[in-house]
């Protein structure tokens, strides 16, 4: 077991310290002990393992603030062990699982269970997100403070919206005790009404019931109004429409405490991916139009959208092998998060520094987590990325139990080659 780790000659990108240049990083005792920019570190200790990182990016470990790890209750789809292992392979050192497990994570017992499981079997850090309401039923507030004490970092009823505006108001007000965000799955269930893909010309062509963009827009507008009223902290999950981006932009300009996240499929795919009744493209919110994709990219570029998260929603193969109406919603995205997001850098929408903000620094800030940085003294969670390495997405190349991704068969460019968690190196092969 080497006493330390030296990452040599990589392109270090750490926006938390304003670093964006070639340098070396030394890790000792599972912490960053030295970060040298522009110079090389000379280390005499032969027991230190050296990783040559020429031509690679060296960045803080990614933090995925929106995943579904399915445990407890749906272990056939994914477990904390398999999910965090897949996360590690995707360059992630921390994930935030949503509470729509079985039993639902609406109390400290389930929160503790998840944390304990992650500690015993997990491959990266797990920060649970607790439910806003008991049973995610949308009527009574859950014990946020007790869950927070047990380790929950934010609250959401994700999977579902909080339909009752009064309950959402109370949640935003109550969350101020803990100064944590309320994460909104913005969907008006009544407008969705049996819909399975974006409502538009294509849903007409395919003979499938549509989910109108208005279903997202009305709830984003509502949540922003409530954030304004309560001065609570609002975070909008998986933004998919132009109008939602515009509403958030205006709210931020006004000074309302709102942050937002989107997922890679919303800036790389459109509703066309559903062609042929491809259930791997069935997701909620649904894939939208080219105009929305453009708006998401604009929102990422100008900072309206703060975070890129995966909304990792693994399902068992049998469950997606159904007719489109009955297949469950969800894309397995934890392992493709980084590679798909790198495409934003190659087309100039984001700089690498900007990307690190979206994938690491901002989630850490929003959820008040340690991490998202390479600062000396901090826990050594980082990832070495080869921006040119091809990544062929196949069922075999994915470690997650969930193979339900519309990117099957695609070759992406750029992936994590070494993920370092608590100073331990995992080589992604």
């Amino acid at each position, binding site marked *: 077991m080497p006493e330390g780790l030296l990452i040599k000659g990589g392109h270090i990108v750490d926006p938390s310290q304003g670093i964006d240049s070639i340098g070396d990083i030394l890790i000792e005792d599972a912490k960053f002990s030295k970060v040298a920019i522009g110079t090389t570190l000379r280390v005499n200790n032969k027991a230190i393992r050296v990783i040559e990182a020429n031509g690679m990016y060296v960045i803080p470990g990614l933090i995925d603030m929106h995943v579904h790890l399915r445990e407890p209750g749906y272990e056939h789809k994914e477990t904390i062990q398999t999910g965090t292992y897949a996360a590690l392979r995707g360059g992630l050192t921390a994930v935030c699982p949503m509470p729509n497990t079985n039993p639902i994570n609406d109390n400290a017992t389930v929160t503790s269970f998840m944390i304990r499981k992650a500690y015993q079997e997990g491959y990266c850090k797990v920060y649970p997100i607790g439910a806003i309401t008991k049973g995610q039923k949308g009527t009574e507030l859950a014990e946020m403070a007790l869950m927070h004490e047990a380790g929950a970092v934010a609250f959401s009823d994700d999977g579902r919206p909080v339909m009752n505006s009064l309950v959402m108001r109370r949640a935003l007000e109550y969350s101020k005790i803990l100064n944590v965000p309320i994460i909104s799955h913005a969907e008006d269930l009544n407008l969705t009404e049996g819909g399975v893909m974006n409502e538009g*010309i294509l849903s*007409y062509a395919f*003979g499938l019931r549509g989910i109108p963009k208005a279903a997202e827009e009305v709830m984003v507008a509502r949540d922003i109004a409530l954030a304004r009223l309560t001065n609570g902290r609002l975070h909008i999950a998986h933004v998919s429409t132009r109008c939602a981006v515009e509403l958030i932009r205006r709210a931020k300009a006004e000074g309302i405490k709102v942050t937002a996240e989107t997922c890679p499929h919303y800036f790389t795919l459109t509703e066309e991916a559903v062609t042929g009744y491809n259930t791997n493209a069935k997701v909620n919110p649904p894939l939208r139009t080219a105009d929305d994709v453009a708006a998401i990219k604009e929102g990422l570029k100008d900072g309206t959208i703060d975070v890129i998260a995966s909304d990792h929603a693994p399902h068992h193969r049998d469950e997606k092998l159904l007719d489109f109406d009955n297949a469950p919603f969800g894309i397995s995205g934890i392992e493709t998060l980084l590679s798909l997001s790198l495409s934003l850098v190659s087309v100039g929408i984001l700089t690498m520094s900007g990307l690190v903000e979206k994938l690491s620094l901002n989630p850490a800030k929003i959820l008040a987590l340690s991490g998202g940085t390479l600062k000396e003294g901090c826990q050594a969670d980082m990832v070495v990325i080869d921006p040119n390495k091809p990544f062929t997405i196949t069922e075999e190349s994915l470690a997650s139990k969930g193979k339900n991704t519309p990117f099957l068969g695609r070759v992406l460019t750029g992936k994590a080659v070494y993920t370092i968690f608590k100073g331990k190196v995992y080589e992604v092969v």
Partner: protein
Amino acid sequence: MKKDLVSIKDLTADEIRHILVTASTFKDVLKRDIKKVPTLRGKTMVNLFFEPSTRTRTSFELAQKRLSADVLNFSVTTSSVVKGESLYDTLRTIQSYGADYIVIRHPCSGTPHLLSKIVRASVINAGDGINEHPTQALLDAFTIQEKLGEFKGLEVAIVGDILHSRVARSNTLCLRALGANVRYVGPPTLIPTYLPKGIRAFYNLQEGLRGVDVVMALRVQKERMDRGFFPSEREYFKLYGIAEERLQMAAPNAVVMHPGPMNRGIEISSEVADSERAVILEQVTNGIAVRMAVLYLVGGADA
């Protein structure tokens, strides 16, 4: 021709015309004393109906038997197949019976498409969710051709619940491919918000029927009223029911069609349903001939 008929989009305009021509030969066969030809003798046809349907199933069954094929009927009610849970298993089991043709009706759009990728047999879509009902559109086109001749420039009004109608959608594709013009007439709540170019929507029945050559009335389902698409049956009939006076606006020799079964007094008045203009029973007869043509022309497992 493709091995399956899952959507009207699977057919070129020429292939549609060929089916109609072939159907008229089969219509002659149906007039003979021996209403049978040995053409598909020894072929196994499975009728897989996940939704109850007497008319369409019977029509297919007759067509199959007139072609001397062996027919197996599976009526799978949704309670016995738990919400699609064992759909793949059911479909693969059918294939193991050695089916050459599978005629499938399913409550979810896209299922025949799925089936055609799993099985070697020829898949014929007898209605999938709100998506398509290709043989209905073909028999409607056949009926129109018999009555009115050429399709180019014909004005067809589809009236009623277009949003949930697979008959409307297949007919729209078929008629436009043949050169006819299609318009939708109905309450805004039952017409899709996003329509392809070239289809006009009319919320006023009189305007919608002006100069029209074919009036296709769609069945109104009571549950649409219960789910808030329109307030009551009597208001629906007042605004959109096909009654004698409303037809004054249409072309003088306009034809009235209905895929059946009819709700007399809701989407269509009894007088119109029983009048000379209504070709509803002919649609049924033609259905058998058209389905025989489809089964004859679509490949079969060896194609």
